[in-house]
């Protein structure tokens, strides 16, 4: 049976009618009109569905939507403001961190979270992004992008 589940998505309150065990991923994509978060495997292996839930990085394919009740959800759609990309987005664009783009939303969310909470990955960027598979880049340009994002931020660029 479906339930009414409310949470904030990128600062806006949303209410979805969803089965409680439906993964948050589908609630976002189909019920909350936010298809920027991608399906890649449905089993927490690829990280394409990565979002930030109450300031923690999670795979939205493994979160039953009932557990998102009242939570603060941040997705790729919420990063850029009206006229500026987030530093991580801009860095991925400049550095060639995105190729086919399907892992990009999840990868960027992991990157954003890493810049907010570097202490969560003592091993640095390779550890911070180890849950996000990319098949196009070999990760080289993604590492470059993360360096660039730090530069943009320290030069006063957008990113929180």
């Amino acid at each position: 049976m479906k339930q009414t589940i409310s949470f904030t998505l990128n600062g806006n309150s949303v209410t979805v009618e969803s089965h409680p065990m439906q993964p948050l991923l589908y609630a976002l994509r189909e019920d909350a009109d936010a298809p920027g978060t991608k399906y890649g495997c449905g089993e927490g292996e690829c990280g394409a569905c990565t979002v930030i839930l109450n300031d923690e990085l999670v795979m939205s394919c493994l979160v039953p939507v009932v557990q998102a009740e009242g939570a603060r959800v941040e997705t790729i759609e919420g990063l850029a403001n009206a006229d500026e990309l987030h530093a991580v987005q801009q860095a991925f664009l400049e550095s060639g961190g995105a190729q086919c783009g399907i892992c990009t939303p999840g990868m960027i969310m992991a990157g954003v979270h890493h810049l907010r909470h570097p202490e969560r990955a003592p091993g640095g960027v390779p550890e911070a992004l180890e849950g996000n598979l990319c098949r196009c880049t070999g990760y080289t340009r993604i590492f470059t992008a993360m360096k660039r994002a730090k530069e943009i931020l320290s030069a006063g660029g957008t990113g929180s």
Partner: protein
Amino acid sequence: MKTNVAELQVCSPRSIDEALQQRRDIPGLTPIAGGTEVLVWLNDAKFAGKTYQSLHGLAKDWRYVRANKDGTLGIGALATYSDVRFHPVVKERYPLLVESARVTGALQIQNRGTPVGNIANGSPAADTVPSLLVYDAKLKLKSLRGERLVDLKDFFTGYRRNVMTSDELITEIVLPPPLFMPAQQHYRKVGTREAQAISKVVFAGARSAAGVRLAWGSLAPTTIRALKTEAALQNGADANAAWEILQREIAPIDDIRSTAEYRRKVARNILFEFLNKLANTL
């Protein structure tokens, strides 16, 4: 998602009592902490269970890592791998647990998955369980009938089987005060790659004046303590003799990820590596 979620029943208790009542009254109820295992099954329709209990409403009660005055440590049922991994007391006293939480899945999994779930799930490849075994962990099992304390090493009775009754929940892992010097502890996860891997072999080991502990994952139907090998080492057995005994305590198999032969060889090499490390820290 191969499971039709519309066919599932889910209850979300708001209090411990309600949770325990549901455990007593609803047959076949599968509890969920972070969901990192159950949703994988559902995705692949690999699990027949139709009734679930999502414990997220009990976070205020059960999401904690608590250093007690008596020197013990309590890990609540909803404490995540990240909660454990970054807890200052755990970092100081239980390095094997920190290491094993670090190599469990990736950050996203560590932020949702729980050591208690890792135990309840009963996978022989569980990454944190060998560490907990080394530290002589005990489990608090609670039901409306009361609470009991079970040694983790006595908890598993077979492949994904344990001593819990259907009305119980694991509410806490209790770790006694640490016995081991950091230099005399060793952890090894052998996966299919550097990160986000299911283990082919897991090892946690430590030594103190009180004795040697050897715990293994992926070498038997459950995670195990190699009690006979521990005893032999205690009685002065050398590495080769210890390996002879360990061989009889493990029962590795061929599966989709590795071979019995490889697991056996790696177990031997890790045992030797660990004993070498001990010899060099005397």
